[in-house]
């Protein structure tokens, strides 16, 4: 082939491609057909997930199997999640935030980070007055009560000591340096404990108590559920954790733990859910929101080692005894609104300075 022919061939080829390219915009990619009932164009959903990894993964798979939408999730503790949502305010990477104590959602609402959504499934809620936001910015998806987990091996090795059954028991000398709890700044669990004490005793006596209680703590962890594990392994004697996490450690990980509740009343959490303002997959987020409020979705927990109680009607409780305890009338709005202030106070006055003296 002569050079000239190659040249003319090249020119023709290039021109052909140019013309093709010029025509191409007409053939823009058609939106993929929705796979299942509701016509949703989104094929992906980015979930910010706060409960345990196993449950997040389970919910992801169930949702994917049902709706054919791929779920990307990342698990973060509630403080971390709130920090992330704040940082990405102008350019949100997540569509929906599922799980984690409601006070983080109250805080997020206060900063205008959540998108209101009036779900048709609000009708399923057992207690709509308490379980959802007045402006529909968040809703409760599970309930869990706070309990104490005590290592039974440690109890056997220390005859005469009994598992704590009141907040005052934690201050006993035998538990000095043996209590483990997460840090309220990063963990919703620990903040629930802090707010419970403040509500039980009033602010002044409450802070006095917290001062003493921090002196009993061997280590503050980052994640709320971790102390149960550490105590089960014998790193300390008593953990302050949500009771459903304790059940999980006893039943699935066979840790030697005993579950007790404080007699004078214990706090509880409502695990929240909210759509983030500016979500890029809004339709899919609403689909998840509706789905998460169905009895079907809420009965999945125990399959994935999550024993939290549901917030909707028509779900059989896996562990009803966790709710049959003396519950305080926990004020979520008050706790949420004061979160920043209380956490700052705790960090700066108690766990920041005092504990360092050892």
């Amino acid at each position: 082939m002569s050079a000239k022919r190659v040249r003319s061939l090249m020119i023709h080829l290039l021109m052909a491609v140019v013309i093709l390219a010029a025509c191409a915009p007409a053939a823009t990619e058609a939106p993929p057909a929705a796979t299942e009932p509701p016509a949703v164009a989104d094929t992906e959903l980015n979930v910010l997930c706060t409960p345990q990894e196993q449950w997040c993964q389970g919910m992801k798979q169930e949702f994917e199997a049902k709706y054919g939408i791929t779920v990307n999730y990342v698990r973060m503790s509630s403080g971390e999640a709130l920090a992330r949502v704040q940082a990405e305010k102008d350019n949100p990477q997540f569509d929906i935030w599922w799980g984690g104590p409601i006070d983080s959602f109250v805080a997020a609402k206060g900063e205008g980070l959540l998108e209101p959504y009036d779900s048709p499934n609000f009708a399923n809620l057992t207690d709509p007055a308490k379980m959802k936001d007045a402006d529909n910015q968040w809703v409760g998806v599970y309930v869990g009560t706070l309990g104490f987990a005590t290592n039974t091996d440690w109890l056997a090795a220390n005859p005469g000591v009994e598992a704590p059954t009141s907040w005052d028991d934690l201050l006993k000398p035998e538990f000095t340096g043996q209590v483990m709890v997460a840090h309220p700044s990063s963990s919703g669990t620990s903040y629930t404990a802090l707010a419970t004490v403040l509500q039980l005793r009033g602010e002044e006596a409450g802070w006095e108590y917290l001062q003493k209680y921090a002196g009993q703590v061997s280590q503050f962890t980052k994640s709320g559920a971790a102390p149960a594990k550490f105590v089960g392994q014998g790193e300390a004697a008593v953990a302050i954790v949500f009771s459903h996490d304790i059940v999980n450690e006893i039943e699935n990980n066979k840790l030697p733990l005993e579950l007790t509740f404080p007699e004078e009343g214990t706090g509880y959490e409502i695990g929240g859910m909210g759509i983030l303002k500016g979500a890029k997959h809004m339709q899919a987020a609403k689909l998840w929101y509706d789905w998460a409020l169905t009895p079907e979705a809420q009965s999945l927990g125990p399959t994935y080692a999550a024993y939290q109680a549901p917030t909707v009607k028509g779900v059989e409780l896996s562990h009803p005894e966790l709710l049959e305890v003396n519950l305080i009338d926990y004020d979520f709005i008050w706790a949420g609104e004061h979160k920043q202030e209380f956490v700052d106070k705790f960090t700066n006055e108690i766990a920041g300075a005092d504990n360092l003296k050892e």
Partner: protein
Amino acid sequence: MKTTLAIPKSPKVQFVGVTRRFREFSLIFRDPVLFMSLLFSGIFIFVFVLLPILRTISGGFFSEEGTLDLAYFARYFDSFYGPGLRQAFLDTMVMGLLTAIFGTFVGFIFAYASVRCNPPAKSLLHWLALLPTVSPPFALALSVILLFGRSGLITKKVLGINFVAGQNDIYGLDGLVLVQTITFFSVAYLILRAMLERLNPSMEEAAASLRASRWHIFRTVTFPLLIPGVAGSFLLLFVESLADLGNPLFIAGNRTVLSSQIFLAVIGEYDYQKASALSLILIIPTLILFMIQRYYVNRRSYISVTGKPSGAQVTEKDPVIRWAFNIAAYLICAFVILLYATIVYGSFSFSWGVDFTPTLRHWSMVVTRGVEAILDTTFLSALATPFAAFLGMVIAWLVVRKNFSGKEILDFSSNLGGAVPGTILGIGFILVFNKPPLALAVIVYGLLAIFYVLVVGRDTRERLILLLVGTTVGLLLARLEATRVHYLLGGLYLLLGMILFLSSKNMFMSISSALLGLYVMSTNWANAIAQPIANFSRSIERGFWSNAIFQFSDHIKVLIQPPPSLLAILLIFAGILLVQGLKHPLARLAGGILALAIPCAMSFMEIPFALVGGAYIIMAAFVIRSLPASVRAGVASLQQIDPSIEEASNILGGDAQYTFRKVTLPLILPALIAGLIFSFTRHMTSLSAIIFLVSAKWRIVTASILSEWEQGGVSIAAAYSTLIILLVLIAIVILNIVTNRLLRGREGVDLSQF
């Protein structure tokens, strides 16, 4: 780039300097490859190193409302917050100091044993000493807790200790220093080993023949000669220890150090101002130590690197000393093996501390729920690796072989990204790339465009036309709707290909331009390619394979949909290479305008540099962290190549680019490959810089380990750690085999330059 800033303050005094600079500038300008490398590495370092760091540390001075606020610094001096903050600062310094002392000491034992004492199984010793560099940053903290924690295998099962309140356990500064010593001693070992090997034995021989005793020789000859190495490794370890985040988070107990304080300020209190203020407090000692190391210790090296053999190595003759060193080294080795074996064992036991029954349940969790994180991490690390090694080599080449003003700054700042604590970089990345100022895009584009017209245009009038018309057309294009504009831009490259072909008959250039056009258009087709794969993943049963296949569809999108603002930088350089050779003035003008308008449109599409949440920001963080090592590897190997070889090529008519390709590159290939290995390792194991950058789509294993550890338990964390170590080792073996094939018979890869 920097030279343009040299504006004289008083013309009379600086006149000579100015002419020199001007001449230098025009010389650089005459060598576009040099100028291009300079501009490229300069922009990269400015955008991804200097800007984020400056943004972080300046954030401490401003409150949320943007007013000047020194509250967080003042807290160090009041009586309320002061004691706690000062204690944390003091603890940080004590930690750094102790880690540096012990790490250097252990490193010295290893280096002395390996070089002078001729230990049996010397290479085993060498590889074991390097093992801590390939493991995730907190793997050792994990295993120390498994062994010596309150329910540790040794403390509880073997020794039967039951911890009571107040008893000293592994948590705290002592445990932290132990873990950091083992984690970082490899650095000291490598530095001191290189030094010992290069010591000129004649001095010691002279002392010995003068009847000096062994101790006397060591005290007065050997040790003084080693002082630069000892000081250097001491300072490096100090810096590494301050920057460490993973270990303090887990093993510091109730002590807090600055790096974990910063981390908690962000994730716990969502207080970026406080985090920034603490960052500044942490970065000051880091920078001081780093500068001392670079500019004082390195200059005082008594070792002359002549490349000439300096006679036989001295070996230790006294059996007592020899075996003392060997046994000490072997004991430490045994400890290292024990620690790593524990991690593997931990990943297989049912519930550590309670039930040691072997089980695969943690591994099955890792391969189902962890598969996304594992694939993403490996993919992004691998993709960033060649780029990091390449950039490192370019910077090394500039630093060693070229002379220009601002060279020191380039060298220093390329090292800075790896030396500052990763959390500081991570915070800076979020602050800068979440809602980037338009000025950033304008500055980057402006610099590139000016450079472009200087190279492409032949006279001032032509340059001005190119700049103005190209930019205007580009800005107009940028306003079009996204799908359309990609087709249009791709089409313009095809047009450019035709112009090139018609005017210069250069087949290669026109085909390159056409391919570039197709690549730009393929941004629109990415979904068409990825969608069927994603749909397929949704159609099969949920589990390992569906997750893995879905991730694959995401990886395709990463390859063909880079952020436009980053692609634009490469396109400008591509444009120069394409258009530069055009002789015909009209063709040059038309082609030149096209080749500038396209990147210009790319630069200002969507929100330029809004990278948060994507894959590229994680890769950028990876590259920044591994850059110092690849630069060092490059510098070390370039310094050993005599410039006269390159000069010969220049004299014979090869330009800079030809010389680099045909002469320098083959000679530095071993270092390049060592750089690849090291970069990949560093990417796979980095935690602190990327912890704030993970997103739902892009999860990174090290961050998962952190979350799983406290949540799912140590065994899953151990399984993840084992997996990372395995993946890194596999990559090293593969690269080694490839290299040995490539470099048949030539000098192998020497990993010990790091």
